[in-house]
């Protein structure tokens, strides 16, 4: 992402006009959703649990896919060839199972116990009245989510700078300003509806670009033949070590622990419809991912050596190839797809962070048991969104190195802490509050240690040891602590 600014595009007038129109539509959605979002916290943070199955499918999928898919996966396929397929397979399969099995349980429980955040779910499931689980969960979510949001803004700033010749600080402020505007006005509904548009932008760009590029190079067979001639491992999906294969597939372990994805499942009107969302979400995930992979492969034929790309960085392939092959209007669409990826992730993460402050800390801990006006809570939530944006901007400006260090393992940190504990909380009656607390501590400790030690970090993707450490810690501590007496009733409420 950091090298994006080196790829100067500077869009022509038509492309610029279509891009501005796209931004106007996104903000208009925020205005449209304002009234609905103002009625209460459930409306502001989970769309009143009334979201359409198609919207939930696409929103869940694109919230989890940041610019990593467009720039990172294309760059990875460019570098290592067909074996990059395993980096997308893990999360796509994991999210299929989440839609089909995990999501329905979480959705039913959250309605039965009025949960609108992931810490809410844990607090209700384990009778956490004093914040033993809420507080560490909020701490984990805030640290990683704010870093995530901050990094998305920085990436957006660089994309703006590269596309429009603006200074990166102006670009950073513009990205933050647009996301802030529609999120603060329209809350979850605006975020989900804009995700819908952004999902369409992303899939169109990821289908058009590889198709045009492959046709331009004479078709798929000549492309594959040229790849094989360049380096036979480029067309071998198994040309990677066992550790790399496990690490790639292990990316999928992050999906059940990232609250900006999970909250989408809680927002669907009818949990039975999650099966439909599973199909739509999987098709979308697959088409986007394989589009990115084909861009990487055909890109290698265009630019056989990384030195031919700006700054020698494979992450610049997506924009460089588009600039070479696409009509200015399509180029505008492709640039919009990068913003779509950035904004669809940042807005969801921003709402999750704001909900942690207002719902979990303010309402759940500091003002617990007191009657609070729903409209006032929405006002506080909007203030929290504004403050978080300011904080993320400041954090990105003052401590960019720390932000990027944290973001490198935000997916893993959240996935290891919340993934195994939430799966056990949803499926295993014997899970206890102490067990979950032990799981959260184990995950955080192991991921931080793993990330800090270069040798460990290079040996295996840190999410895998973090995830299994949390799983084992939760299992063991749950077994040695007294079994909860109402778990049967709670798990029954999760079933149909």
């Amino acid at each position, binding site marked *: 992402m950091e090298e994006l600014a080196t790829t100067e595009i500077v869009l022509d007038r038509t492309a610029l006009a279509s891009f501005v129109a796209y931004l106007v539509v996104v903000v208009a959605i925020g205005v449209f959703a304002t009234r609905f979002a103002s009625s209460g916290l459930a409306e502001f943070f989970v769309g009143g649990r009334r979201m359409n199955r198609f919207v939930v499918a696409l929103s869940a999928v694109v919230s989890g896919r940041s610019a990593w898919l467009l720039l990172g996966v294309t760059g990875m396929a460019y570098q290592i060839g067909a074996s990059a397929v395993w980096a997308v397979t893990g999360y796509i399969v994991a999210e299929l199972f989440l839609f089909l099995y995990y999501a329905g349980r979480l959705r039913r429980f959250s309605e039965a116990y009025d949960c609108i955040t992931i810490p809410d779910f844990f607090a209700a499931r384990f009778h956490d009245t004093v914040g033993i689980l809420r507080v560490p969960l909020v701490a984990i979510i805030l640290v990683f989510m704010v870093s995530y949001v901050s990094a998305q803004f920085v990436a957006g700033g660089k994309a703006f700078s590269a596309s429009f010749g603006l200074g990166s600080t102006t670009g950073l402020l513009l990205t933050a300003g647009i996301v802030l505007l529609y999120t603060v006005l329209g809350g979850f509904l605006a975020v989900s509806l804009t995700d819908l548009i952004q999902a369409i932008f992303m899939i169109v760009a990821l289908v058009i670009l590889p198709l045009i590029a492959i046709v331009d190079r004479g078709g798929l067979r000549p492309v594959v033949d040229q790849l094989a001639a360049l380096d036979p491992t480029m*067309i071998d999906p198994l040309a990677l070590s066992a550790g790399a294969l496990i690490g790639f597939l292990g990316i999928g372990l992050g999906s059940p622990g990232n609250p900006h994805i999970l909250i989408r499942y809680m927002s669907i009107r009818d949990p039975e419809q999650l*099966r439909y969302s599973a199909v739509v979400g999987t098709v979308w995930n*697959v088409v986007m991912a394989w589009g990115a992979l084909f861009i990487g492969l055909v890109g290698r034929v265009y630019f056989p050596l990384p030195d031919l790309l700006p700054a020698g960085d494979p992450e610049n392939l997506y924009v460089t190839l588009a600039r070479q092959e696409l009509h200015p209007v399509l180029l505008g669409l492709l640039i919009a797809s990068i913003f779509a990826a950035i904004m669809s992730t940042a807005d969801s993460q921003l709402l999750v962070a704001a909900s942690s402050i207002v719902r979990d800390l303010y309402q759940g801990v500091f003002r617990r048991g007191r009657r609070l006006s729903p409209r006032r809570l929405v006002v506080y939530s909007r203030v929290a969104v504004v403050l978080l944006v300011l904080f993320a901007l400041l954090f990105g400006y003052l401590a960019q190195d720390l932000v990027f260090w944290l973001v490198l393992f935000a997916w893993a940190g959240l996935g290891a802490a919340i993934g195994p504990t939430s799966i056990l909380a949803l499926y295993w009656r014997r899970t206890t509050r102490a067990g979950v607390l032990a799981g959260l501590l184990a995950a955080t400790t192991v991921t931080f240690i793993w990330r800090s030690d270069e040798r460990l970090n290079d040996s295996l993707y840190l999410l895998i040891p973090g995830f299994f450490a949390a799983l084992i810690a939760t299992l063991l501590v749950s077994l040695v602590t007294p079994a909860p007496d109402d778990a049967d009733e709670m798990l029954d409420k999760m079933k149909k």
Partner: protein
Amino acid sequence: MTLGFIAAMFLLPVAIIAAAFFLASRKKGALDRGNSSSG
């Protein structure tokens, strides 16, 4: 084009989508019922 390449780049995505359809449709009628809400 090698068999491995065809499997990874063409058969695998089709297999994942087919698995999604199969698992989702195991419950009769789950894909047929409408959902009229948009939030």
